């Protein structure tokens, strides 16, 4: 009896506030836009009994998805989200790996402090961290003033409101997600393997590529997914740092919903975004399971 209560409370909560809402999105993505409240049809009418339910299902169609596939804007938005997320992930790996590597090589007594320094930004507001770059990247911002002062450039660069600023924003805000799993993998690395490789005639750089990198593979994969998956649906970064030409699907969904008030199309955009995300999420889970098995 107690056990049933314990299971039912969180179960029902999640059903009511996670699964059912998602089913509603799925349903509305199959509905039509209407000038009504709520602004879509059909709505389920139980008063008509079975006939009402039947006509409800008969009225659902894939029209919104046809609309999405026929309009260039959405294709471009999905593709550009994928490419922005992909390149940001690569950049975050290039920036994050050396930091994680150095942390793993640092003396034992430094490590808790270094860990805390990497985790601290997590606790700081995401919005503020993105906002801090607006003042740095703008035309008369800190970066341009600095570069002009050093004489490296003679004209201020336009960085804010371009895709470059979006890349910087994603790498900056998600960097800890990349550093931590790689550090966790590198920390477990057995130093004697490197010594053995060097005794057998490897240079340090060869030993790094032959031993360190493959043994940190699961950390690299985990870090890449942890950056890629949230970056794909990102909304805050492209709307603050990106320009009007920056197309990301999270931003398109937001505008479709709040500016155009087209709920069925916004829902269809959400359903396709989720379908795209399923593949990386499954791959990520497999990698996690594999590394857990390797440990156990």
């Amino acid at each position, binding site marked *: 009896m107690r056990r049933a209560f314990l299971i039912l409370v969180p*179960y029902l909560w999640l059903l009511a506030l996670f699964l059912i809402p998602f089913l509603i*999105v799925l349903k509305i993505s199959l509905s039509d836009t209407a000038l009504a409240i709520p602004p879509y049809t059909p709505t389920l009418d139980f008063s008509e009994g079975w006939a009402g339910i039947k006509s409800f299902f008969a009225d659902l169609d894939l029209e919104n998805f046809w609309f999405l596939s026929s309009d260039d804007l959405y294709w471009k938005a999905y593709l550009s989200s994928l490419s922005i997320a992909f390149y940001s992930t690569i950049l975050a790996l290039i920036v994050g790996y050396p930091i994680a590597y150095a942390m793993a090589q640092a003396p034992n007594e430094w490590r808790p402090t270094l860990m805390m320094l990497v985790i601290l930004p997590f*606790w700081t*507001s995401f919005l503020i961290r993105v906002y*801090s770059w607006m*003042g740095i990247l703008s035309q008369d911002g800190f970066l341009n003033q600095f570069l002009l002062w050093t004489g490296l450039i003679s004209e201020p660069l336009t960085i804010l409101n371009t895709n470059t600023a979006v890349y910087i924003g994603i790498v900056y805000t998600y960097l800890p997600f990349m550093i931590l799993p790689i550090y966790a993998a590198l920390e477990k690395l057995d*130093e004697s393997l490197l010594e053995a490789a060097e005794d057998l005639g490897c240079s340090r750089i060869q030993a790094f590529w032959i031993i360190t990198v493959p043994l940190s593979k699961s950390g690299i994969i985990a870090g890449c997914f942890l950056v890629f998956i949230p970056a794909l649906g990102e909304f805050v970064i492209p709307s603050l740092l990106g320009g009007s030409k920056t197309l990301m699907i999270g931003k398109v*969904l937001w505008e479709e919903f709040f500016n155009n008030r087209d709920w069925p199309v916004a829902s269809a955009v959400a359903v396709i975004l989720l379908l795209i995300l399923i593949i990386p999420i499954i791959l990520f889970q497999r990698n996690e399971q594999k590394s857990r098995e390797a440990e156990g």
Partner: protein
Amino acid sequence: MRRFSWFNATSLTVGFAFLYLPMIILVIYSFNSSKLVTVWAGFSTKWYGELFQNEAFLNAAWVTLKVAVVSSTFATVLGTMAAYVMVRSGRFLGRTLFSGMIYAPLVMPEVITGLSLLLLFIGIGLDRGIVTIILAHTTFSMCYVSVVVSSRLVSFDRSLEEAALDLGCSAFEAFRLVTLPIIAPAVISGWLLAFTLSLDDLVIASFTSGPSATTLPIKIFSAVRLGVSPEINALSTIMISIVTVGVITASLVSKRASVRQQADEQAAVRADG
């Protein structure tokens, strides 16, 4: 140690400079007396003064705090229950669905979670306001809490609980007297995580809030969309300082606790010998 070369030292310095410089610059410019955020015109705290006279921000901060305290408390209770179910309950009908619903919100893009909750609230005719934000925040935070708590529950020695049951405790007493004190650090960090997630959330709150309740991130977002503003710099500085002090205090406290625990254990070993 052997390998801690100039290369490692450089990557740490450059890496941490990248992570912290933007926030440091923001803090410095919050003390700038000029209205132009990018031109330094001398030290001043006037933006802090203006901030504390801005009713809209103060109201939003109060709403945000209320939402965060209530939702993280609900999320901690629900998340701990969910973790207990996941780790202890063995098989039950719909277990796969349950664990799916625990993990899915962690990777679900915020725009989708926000949209789906909004459509639910409209569907059932619930007016949007502080209650709907609390419901939304509780839902996604409880999943984070349950992940944190279940990792602690997995590593926990079940025989302690069984011993309590053998000695006549009821299941609830065993949980309260034995299990809860042992998993307490995870429950507390789960609460803190839920609290900061709620304070920080912009996207889901934007979908689920109504005209009657605006949170601080929503206010900040609409202000910074128009450009950089010195008041927001001051507000950001306050938020950064609170977090920094909080995290450093928490880590010092936990460090001291672990030192004491080690000392206790050594004393116990010595007493045994």
